[in-house]
């Protein structure tokens, strides 16, 4: 037997030859994920500069704020495109597969709430191990719903400010009524503060991905690059049975 399969190196509870690499995250959702990471990073830096210009350039670059705003607005449009793409992926007809569809995210079934409780207990050290899922557990899914909501808030407030100077008829029709209800300065405040919520989410997201990855040993972090997770075959059979049940 190969030395890597020695008893002391194998996982004690997963028998050899009983796992399968499963293509969980198809390329659209991985593209969405990494494009979103990049655009949030660019938007946060350029947006912070627009809020508080930390480079006071006297001579060298004669259009510094102009460039920051151009990059911010361009990436804002990419951000909107990503949001629309994600909404499309919620539905099967637009290429969304099993683990990225809307019913995985909106908690409507009791099992999703039980998962949330289970995972919360794991975070609070009440439970040694969390529930393991092929896709998202109920808690993770809910946190992504929160992020999509936050995206919508940034998009709407951003478009209000864009409309403030661009006066595009379509955008004005959609969001032109908002400054009448919420003052433009409060729109700016919300738009700016939501950036910190993205940063906070990012910290939690990476921390929790490391935590769960450490317990699960299924290549959770890896799966966002390759799309594959390593799942025990017994669990796949179980998941298929449940999917069959929910179809009936």
């Amino acid at each position, binding site marked *: 037997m190969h030395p890597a399969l020695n008893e002391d190196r194998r996982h004690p509870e997963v028998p050899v030859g009983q796992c399968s690499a499963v293509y969980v995250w198809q390329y659209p959702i991985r593209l969405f994920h990494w494009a979103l990471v990049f655009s949030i990073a660019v938007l946060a830096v350029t947006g912070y500069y627009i809020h508080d210009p930390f480079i006071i350039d006297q001579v060298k670059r004669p259009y510094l704020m102009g460039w920051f705003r151009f990059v911010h607005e361009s990436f804002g449009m990419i951000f909107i495109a990503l949001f629309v793409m994600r909404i499309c992926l919620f539905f099967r007809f637009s290429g969304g597969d099993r683990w990225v569809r809307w019913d995985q995210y909106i908690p409507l079934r009791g099992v999703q709430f039980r998962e949330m409780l289970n995972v919360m207990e794991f975070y609070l050290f009440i439970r040694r191990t969390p529930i*393991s899922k092929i896709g998202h557990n109920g808690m993770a899914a809910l946190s992504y719903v929160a992020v999509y909501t936050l995206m919508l808030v940034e998009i709407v407030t951003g478009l209000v400010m864009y409309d403030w*100077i661009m006066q595009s008829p379509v955008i004005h029709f959609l969001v032109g*009524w908002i400054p009448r209800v919420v003052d433009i300065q409060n729109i700016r405040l919300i738009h700016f503060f939501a950036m910190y919520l993205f940063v906070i989410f990012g910290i939690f997201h990476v921390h929790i991905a490391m935590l769960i990855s450490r317990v699960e040993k299924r290549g959770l972090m890896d799966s966002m690059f390759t799309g594959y997770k390593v799942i025990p075959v017994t669990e796949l059979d179980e998941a298929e049975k449940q999917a069959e049940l929910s179809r009936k």
Partner: protein
Amino acid sequence: MLAVETEQASLAGALGRRGITRRQLVKFCSLMLTTLALPDKYLAATVAAVSKAKKQVLVWMQFQDCAGCSESMLRSSHPEIADIVLDLFSWEYHELIMAGSGAAANAVLDRVVTQEKGNYIAVVEGGIPTADGGVYCTIGGRSALDIAKTVCGNAAATIAVGACAADGGFMRAHPNPTGAVGLEEAVPGIRLINMNGCAHNPVNTAAVLVHYLTFRDLPAVDQHNRPLFAYGRVIHDQCERRAHYDAGRFVTEWGDEGHRKGYCLYKMGCKGPAATFNCPTAQWNDHTSWPIRAGHGCIACASPRFWDHMSPFYDRLPSVPGFGVEVTAGELGLGLVGAVVAGVTVHGLITMIRPAPPYPETKV
């Protein structure tokens, strides 16, 4: 009797008696057309309409105000504006400048409201208190609200000049003990135009009056009922310091090198990007200057409820509600991020020192 005579007189004659030549009248009309952003083909029609017009009766009401808007109108040293606007209308009632007082003054107002019903123009300056039955502003024993309902309700059109008349202004700023509101809320349903600003710009108000005389209608308005010709564009986009903004050259401290060089006041809390007004082009005191040229950031005095919405005047964003007056969104955000980083670090350390957990469960 005098009032009746001037009312009937044609305007050209009245202006001639005041020594205003036709040349001055045409210059005045050109200025008004420029302000209204109308093409010069309207010049002949405007001059004809203004000089042929029968004098329109006008009453200028003052409620919770500082008389600053009256001063702004009267002290425009442009002879065309001060003289012609005062002569274009039969200025029947204006507490600040009228000779009559007490019962005589009230009688004039009553006569205008009854005899000129539906024909006169009402200009209102100052907020209208509504708390405790409106006792915080009374004239001749009647509350401001009562007077405004009578005078504005019977007018052909009402012009709310200044921030106070438009939306309650300074009086309405938090905590608003007198329950002050603007005319739009106090007397709903009247034909009204708001001339926000602290004070209103007399060139804009004169332009609205000339527009009314020429077209018998009020100019097009935005969602806050302010004329688009004056309130349609963001100050930031018309600002003479805009090039410094785009280049990333900012004042960081009052009196620093950048301030002396006339750099952008964005970091000093200038509200130019949030405010819409023609302040940079119309300017003040015969087109002499305006706040940003003078080296002070815009406080958005022509924006709705600017005392509450645009403060703090020297910070970029409003303070975060519920965290005291001095907590900015940046401080709160950084504090939260710091707390999260600390929490996550502790959580991670605890996870590390515990022995590796067993393989996870798959059913809940």
